[in-house]
């Protein structure tokens, strides 16, 4: 199946768009290049909406703009609007078909919108014309089943989720879907019911009590088995709901900041406040210190002159070297004699008289001799000011530098947090953690329930075996017995076939997945350390590492995306469904090396099926461009006119 044209009228960014995709014979890969908001995802949505009536890739349907194109910004919105998407398809057997879906949207009056989506119309070309199919949904489901759609039409950035939670369930469901064993499953169930009924008849016809008891026991074990299976299914259903909730929350969380940033913002604000106070305090202390020392700096020359005057007095022998009043005063205060011994009363009197006489004889010399040490200290103080100045200003400069850094980080964080409410972000994180925890808890409940179910299945099997043995022993009506034997034989064949198909498909998917995964990774360093991929009987995907049987848990996000992509490619290959690959942001989280190889792997699918890539300009890097140009390409630019609120699709032409 190929999409030949996509015609869109009045759908989201597209007012009127008619996109002719490359013809099958050209083998071209269609690459749509557009920045964020130009309508890449909505092109994918237009296809899924037309086929299945749902826009699977909307972040939130509730918060979205109306489905129709809102028109120029300065024009009022209409009260009603019709949306039409039409896909022209070519089937592998040459059949051509047109699928059309319409929707009518009306204003609700409270600012909201009510959209009524009609059933699709499918027209298949016949020699007589384009008659409508009676059962359009059935026709679509037959050609592109909704349950395998996610492996062909998907968002590359969300692939990573596939191997994050409940992957076992997804892998099992996916493998069984493409193995198309649902009919066998139903046949198996039918035969089982027939077998149970036949056994009941045999038991009823028999007079053998042991068989009756065995049949009753089997019925009890089966009832338990059914109960456990229902419990498991209920758990899986809960898991599915939780997972959807988790994905929604994870999606919202991606665009929300880390709640810890709010804590950091508060801490930085406190730090900044503290630093501002500290700087103010240090500055005030510095200026106060400058004020206190400034008189000594400003009066330094005067002090030098005073010291010169003292020096001259000394030179003029006006200051007796050993009899200076200061010296005498010191001896008196310490009670020490000139000779070094203790001062007695008589000596004290003599010293005091000597001091008075000196002061009376030369009062100026006396004062000068007192002043000298103080003047020298003042001079030394000035000489040390520069050093102290440097220390104080360096301290302030360091604090300012710290303040600058804190402020810079605060500005960055504030810019991130500006558009977010703290409570909302914290609630989101709390919900995300809660759901994550519930998912883990339910995964372990499921594992336990699976184990119980397996054990119960064994009990059922044993009971059945016991019954079968008894049926052979007891005598009963031949016809009843023959029917029982026949049903048992049929059931064995069907079960064997089912298991065989299941195993075969699983092995083929695993082999193809391994090949794609290693191909995708072999250019990056880590690629050399992985040696294979397996899917075990419980549908657990394991990436085999050179030194470990299972390294799935430690894969990086990019590697997980490669694994999921490899899984999709493998399912596409094994399924036998000839469906197109339409991939939005196929190289989203991958680095350049991996991108190059991934684009090669995807584009090489064009040999077998139609490939449509919806890429951001950044994804279409030089390396990717070089790789893709090894294939015939049709490149389309998505050009969004923000005034008109409309995207035009422009074909660059085959390059």
């Amino acid at each position: 199946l190929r999409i030949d044209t996509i015609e869109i009228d009045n759908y989201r960014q597209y007012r009127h768009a008619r996109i002719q995709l490359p013809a099958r014979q050209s083998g071209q890969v269609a690459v749509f290049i557009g920045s964020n908001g130009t309508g890449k995802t909505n092109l994918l949505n237009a296809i899924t909406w037309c086929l299945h009536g749902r826009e699977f890739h909307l972040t939130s349907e509730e918060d979205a703009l109306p489905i129709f194109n809102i028109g120029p910004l300065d024009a009022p919105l209409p009260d009603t609007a019709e949306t039409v998407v039409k896909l022209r398809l070519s089937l592998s057997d040459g059949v051509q078909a047109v699928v059309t879906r319409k929707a009518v949207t009306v204003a609700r009056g409270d600012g909201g919108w009510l959209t009524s989506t009609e059933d699709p119309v499918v027209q298949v070309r016949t020699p007589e014309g384009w008659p409508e199919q009676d059962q359009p949904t059935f026709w679509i489901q037959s050609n592109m089943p909704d349950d395998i759609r996610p492996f062909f039409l998907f968002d590359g950035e969300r692939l990573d989720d596939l191997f994050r939670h409940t992957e076992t369930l997804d892998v099992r469901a996916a493998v069984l879907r493409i193995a198309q064993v649902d009919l066998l499953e139903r046949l198996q169930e039918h035969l089982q019911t027939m077998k149970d009924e036949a056994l009941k008849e045999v038991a009823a016809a028999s007079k053998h009590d042991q068989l009756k008891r065995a049949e009753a026991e089997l019925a009890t074990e089966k009832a338990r088995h059914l109960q456990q299976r229902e419990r498991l299914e209920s758990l899986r259903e809960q898991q599915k709901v939780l997972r959807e909730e988790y994905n929604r929350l994870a999606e919202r969380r991606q665009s929300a900041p880390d709640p810890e940033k709010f804590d950091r913002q508060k801490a930085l604000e406190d730090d900044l406040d503290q630093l501002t106070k500290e700087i103010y305090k240090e500055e005030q202390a510095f200026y106060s210190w400058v004020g206190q020392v400034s008189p000594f700096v400003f009066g330094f020359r005067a002090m030098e002159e005073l010291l010169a005057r003292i020096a001259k007095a000394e030179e003029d022998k006006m200051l007796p070297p050993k009899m200076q009043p200061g010296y005498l005063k010191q001896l008196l205060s310490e009670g020490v004699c000139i000779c070094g011994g203790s001062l007695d009363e008589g000596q004290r009197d003599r010293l005091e008289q000597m001091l008075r006489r000196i002061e009376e004889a030369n009062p100026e010399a006396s004062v000068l001799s007192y002043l000298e040490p103080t003047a020298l200290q003042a001079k030394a103080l000035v000489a040390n000011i520069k050093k102290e100045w440097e220390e104080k200003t360096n301290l302030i400069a360091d604090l300012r530098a710290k303040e600058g850094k804190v402020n810079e980080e605060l500005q960055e964080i504030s810019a991130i947090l500006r558009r977010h409410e703290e409570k909302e972000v914290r609630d989101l994180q709390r919900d995300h953690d809660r759901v994550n925890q519930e998912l883990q808890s339910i995964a372990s409940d499921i594992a336990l329930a699976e184990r119980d179910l397996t054990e119960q299945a064994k009990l059922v099997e044993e009971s059945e075996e016991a019954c079968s043995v008894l049926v052979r022993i007891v005598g009963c009506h031949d016809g009843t017995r023959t029917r029982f034997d026949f049903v048992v034989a049929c059931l064995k064949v069907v079960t064997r076939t089912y298991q065989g198909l299941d195993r075969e498909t699983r092995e083929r998917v695993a082999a193809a997945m391994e090949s794609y995964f290693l191909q995708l990774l072999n250019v990056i360093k880590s690629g050399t350390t992985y040696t294979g991929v397996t899917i075990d009987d419980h549908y657990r995907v394991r990436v085999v590492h050179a030194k470990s049987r299972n390294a799935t848990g430690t894969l990086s996000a990019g590697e997980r995306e490669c694994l999921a992509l490899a899984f999709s490619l493998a399912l596409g290959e094994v399924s036998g469904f000839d469906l197109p690959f339409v991939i939005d942001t196929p190289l989203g989280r991958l680095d350049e090396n991996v991108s190059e190889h991934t684009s090669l792997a995807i584009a090489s699918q064009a040999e077998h099926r139609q490939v449509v890539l919806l890429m951001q300009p950044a994804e279409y890097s030089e390396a990717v461009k070089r790789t893709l140009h090894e294939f015939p390409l049709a490149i389309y630019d998505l050009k969004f006119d923000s005034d008109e609120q409309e995207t035009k699709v422009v074909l660059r032409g085959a390059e």
Partner: protein
Amino acid sequence: MNVPENLHGPLVFIDLEQSQREYFEALRKFLGVSNSQAFMIAATWGYLGGQTPGDVQRSGKGWARLETFTPANRLEMLALTLGYSSGRSVEDFEGCWRACEGLAKEGMTLLRDELEKPGKFQQRFAARVLEELRRLELPTSDVTIES
């Protein structure tokens, strides 16, 4: 520090006009200094500004009391005033204090102009101190003022 007893003396005042008082208070506030420290800044600023100390009339309502000056400040006052008059006796403390009061009053007039200039007074003041330090050419490392 040894200071002669008689280095104490009558009170030291700085008698300012009413209009000058707010500048004296502003100086104290900006630099976070006491009355006596502000007095010393004003006096040395006057000395640096080339003012000549003369006799001053006291109203008895000034703020700075001699007891609040450190010995080093008192020495500074002596040094400031002795330099102007080689004939002045070192013993003439009273004369020195009076002359210093005169210097402080003149210094306050000069500081008023500085205080009235736009911008941060503290930074300009610190820059002036630094400039003077550099002019003294003391053997110490170079420093800068962070704004």
